[in-house]
């Protein structure tokens, strides 16, 4: 990421004002269009209240928290090495698979008592995070580090290569079709009902794991020495090296953090959806990267915001339009964001987005 921005190439003054206006507010109007449309149509229809939209929002936020955790991995890695880590979605998938395997190992079932279940899940979370984190570090070490001075596209291709390899690992591990895992937390069980908006166990788990992790992560990157080193490397690796920062270690650390968060997202996904399959990482990767770009790449808060927004859009599309078209709609949004505000919602002007 570079602080200095490329000078604007737009020439005529009046057009520029209009375009600036569009690029500042167009995106917000665009994002608000779908919820507002459905809100109005709900009120006008016989339902006459917004509880359906509220339910969409709650489900969207729960799904969105998974995308947010995965998106942070993309945004951190992109911020520091300018590489789309295509294997990241598969790292998330391996997190889910580790979760499922470790449930079997611990012998957790729906009948397990609450206190055992709590510590079992906590342990599983740590194991899944560790597995995904180590995997991500290993991929960087084997696939990306030898290619640092190579053309930029070379690591992109190894990333895709690793993505294929990991998909096949998943395929051999749990077979080719989606596989159910025990619904340990009764994810769809209603916990509270606020004016028709149902909050389930799954929603509480998703938000309850995501928010603390995000706070810890933001504090780590904002306050700690290592976090400062990460930001310095992202800004200017050469200068960071001259200041005595070990750039290699810092990059490994970035991949480790990204992997840890992807592992936790894998656990939430497994518990929330109660099905896993080897191809889940591919779509998750594309969606999460979209979220990262939407929020402004390199920006952690942006990735979280983007994740929640995408989750909401997906939920609206699943629930109101047609599930088959959901991904296409997400990508249409991505292209529109790129047209209106290439730097994303919270991103600064960067060289790439310039």
């Amino acid at each position, binding site marked *: 990421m570079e602080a200095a921005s490329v000078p604007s190439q737009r020439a005529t003054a009046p057009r520029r004002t209009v375009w600036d206006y569009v690029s500042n507010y167009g995106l917000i109007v665009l994002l608000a269009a779908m919820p507002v449309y459905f809100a109005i149509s709900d009120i006008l229809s016989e339902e006459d209240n917004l509880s359906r939209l509220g339910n969409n929002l709650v489900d969207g936020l729960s799904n969105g928290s998974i995308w947010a955790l995965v998106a942070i991995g993309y945004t951190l890695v992109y911020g520091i090495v300018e590489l789309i880590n295509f294997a990241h979605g598969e790292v998330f998938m391996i997190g889910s698979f580790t979760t499922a395997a470790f449930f079997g190992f611990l012998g957790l079932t729906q009948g397990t008592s609450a206190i055992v279940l709590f510590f079992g899940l906590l342990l599983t979370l740590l194991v899944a995070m560790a597995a995904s984190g180590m995997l991500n570090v290993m991929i960087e070490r084997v696939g990306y580090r030898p290619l640092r001075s190579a053309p930029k596209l070379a690591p992109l291709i190894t990333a895709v290569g690793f993505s294929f390899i990991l998909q096949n690992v998943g395929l051999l591990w749990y077979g080719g079709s989606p596989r159910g895992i025990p619904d340990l937390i009764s994810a769809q069980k209603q916990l509270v009902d606020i004016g028709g908006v149902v909050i389930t166990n799954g929603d509480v788990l998703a938000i309850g794991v995501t928010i603390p992790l995000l706070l810890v992560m933001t504090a780590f990157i904002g306050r700690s020495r290592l976090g400062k080193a990460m930001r310095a490397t992202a800004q200017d690796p050469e200068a960071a090296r001259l200041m005595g920062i070990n750039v290699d270690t810092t990059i490994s650390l970035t991949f480790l953090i990204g992997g840890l968060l992807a592992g936790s997202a894998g656990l939430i996904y497994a518990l929330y959806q109660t099905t896993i399959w080897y191809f889940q990482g591919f779509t998750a990767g594309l969606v999460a990267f979209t979220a990262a770009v939407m929020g402004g790449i390199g920006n952690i808060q942006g990735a979280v915001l983007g994740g929640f927004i995408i989750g909401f859009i997906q939920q609206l599309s699943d629930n109101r339009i047609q599930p088959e078209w959901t991904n*296409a709609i997400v990508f249409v949004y991505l292209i529109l964001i790129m047209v209106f505000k290439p730097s994303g919602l919270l991103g600064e002007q960067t*060289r790439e987005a310039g």
Partner: protein
Amino acid sequence: MSTAAPQEAAAAEPRRRLPNRAGMPPWVEKVVVPVVFLVAAAFLPFLFDSGANFISTCALALAYTVMALGLNIIVGFAGLLDLGYVAFYAIGAYAMGWLGSGFFAHVNDDKGWHVAVTGFAASLPGIHLNFLLVLVGAMILTTIAGVLIGLPTLRLRGDYIAIVTLAFGEIIGKAAVNSDEVKLSGFPIIGGWLGDTFGQDQAVTAGRQGITPVDKVDLPFVDVFTSLNQRPWYWLALAMVAVVLFVNFRLRDSRLGRAWVALREDEVAAVSMGVPAVRTKLLAYGTGAAFGGFAGAYLGSKNNTVNADQFQFFFSIYVLGMVILGGLGSIWGVVLGAITLTFINYELLPELRDWPSKVGLDFDVSEINFGIYGFLLVIMMILRPQGLLPERRRKMELTVEADTHDESVYAARA
């Protein structure tokens, strides 16, 4: 706009000492190698049975070469990373499926429309255009699609272009899968007319089921192709490669080609030298896309099906892999890369299927084809990141580490 003089100036500089070639003098690269390659390739089918599987694979390799050369214009020459090339394959193949099959069975009161077709297809319902007309249609459609996808990426650079093109490819792929539920008669405004013309139940695509059968290639003065005799398919693909090679060499050494390279190397400098960025980039997308449609229409006819499952993200990576493995921007490198990857996919991986049983293991290798392919990609990139036959200009860039403006850890050389 008068841009001629600054462009000449921008182009004159690399001419001085860096010939833009893979280490060969120009007459060798542009005359001797192509003639030897094409003549040798033209005689290859006589060594095999006319229906041989091997010749079919070779024809596929040549069709993929056309695509890879098209993508090379976008990624290699102009430096615009395109991860959605599959969209152009899809559009080309659907042009073939729509204009050369019985898919629109109800047109003209079930009698069909026929333009310059001979043989069996002339008596079938549906739209049947001559293959050459389909090719023109496919190229027009894909050029429009290429320009359309180029427009939102004009303000973007690097990986942002990659992600927008990827999104575009995915949208086209999803639309191909899901549009079997979408009825032409349900379109707003023109739906009534479409319903009257094509029948009320006519869908837009055939989704995963696929449009099949598709008309075989029907050229003037030649018998209609059949799947039993693979030689004509092979020769047609070879002729397409020859045309595309010629166009590629001419474009690369033209003013437009130099403008592409200038934009790739330094956009700000190129623009301030008077290179029209918008027009130049859109021409790169349009030309590259047209080749994709060219090969797509051919593959639709050769595969005898236009099936939404063919148009997945993997295909974009497959073609991009050919370009990068061969060497970005290097025309002969890309040809080599395309042939290598096609043979790995169609000959080497099926060959591997027998290995476990030979050593007494009960294990299905076809299940992990993707993994092996991924492993090979990783190994090839680590061993030879610059590609098999790197372009001379890039080779020099890689060895010179004097980048002052470049602050990425992975040197930002697209």
